[in-house]
């Protein structure tokens, strides 16, 4: 598991690991090897013994990180796929003080307030959208990286 305990990758790994331990009668150990947005853990599986005892549980960062971070390898091309475990939508959450109750109102708000569609604070740059209309300005910092560790328990 390339991200921290408590996140969604850790969640699926522990759920499957627990059931597999029971079904196989053999202990499955979940190890979190974190750092560098998950690339340390993913890299460690690239170099692991191909003996069936090491399995990477990753998310779609495995497909995006190589391009965003300009890595020398594409995980989706060098790692061997085993099984798709689970899917999850992302959700757009708004603070009540924004006074927006739907996607329609959100789009209208963004059109009316171009200045509002500005980069989020650094502390919040974790898959955080700054509103439609904020992209397409290279270097403005508004294209936030989905590669940082995501808290998706």
């Amino acid at each position, binding site marked *: 598991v390339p991200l921290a305990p408590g996140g969604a990758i850790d969640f699926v790994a522990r759920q499957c690991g627990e059931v597999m331990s029971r079904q196989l009668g053999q202990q499955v150990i979940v190890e979190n090897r974190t750092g560098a947005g998950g690339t340390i853990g993913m890299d460690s599986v690239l170099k692991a013994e191909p003996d069936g005892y090491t399995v990477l549980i990753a998310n779609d960062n495995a497909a995006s990180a190589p391009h965003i971070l300009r890595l020398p390898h594409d995980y989706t091309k060098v790692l061997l796929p085993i*099984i798709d475990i689970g899917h999850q939508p992302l959700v757009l959450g708004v603070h009540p003080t924004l006074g927006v109750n739907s996607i329609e109102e959100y789009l209208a708000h963004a059109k009316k307030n171009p200045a509002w569609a500005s980069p989020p604070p650094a502390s919040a740059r974790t898959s955080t959208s700054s509103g439609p209309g904020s992209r397409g300005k290279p270097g403005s910092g508004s294209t936030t990286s989905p590669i940082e560790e995501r808290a998706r328990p």
Partner: protein
Amino acid sequence: VNDLVAGHVKSALLGPTALIPHHQAGTIKIIGQSSAKRAPTLPDIPTFGEGGLKGVALEAWYAAFAPPGTPPALIAQINAAIGNSLTDPRLRDAFAKGIMEPIGGSPEQLGELARADSAKYERLVRELEIRAG
């Protein structure tokens, strides 16, 4: 999540699990989900497309991969073991609570999905000039 609840950021696209309790408590409002169709575990939240934001559909996936060189017979064995675990009722209950849809399937199906997403991200990173940091 904390910045959103505190109002330091007014909107954010995030994983659903941590936001659902805040949505239920009214401290934040979830106004849309990013998948093409409403997730079975989030039937009451409209998709972006339903809300008029067309052409935006993405789903986070969680999957198992083996080190290069792992023999196909071992891959098949692990695929079956993980696939079997996804049929466990307690696991399915926990997945539903975590807004996680169990998928399963063959290694080839995951390979196609992962490579298609990689190609998509390669194009997005190039066209939007996305840089880390």
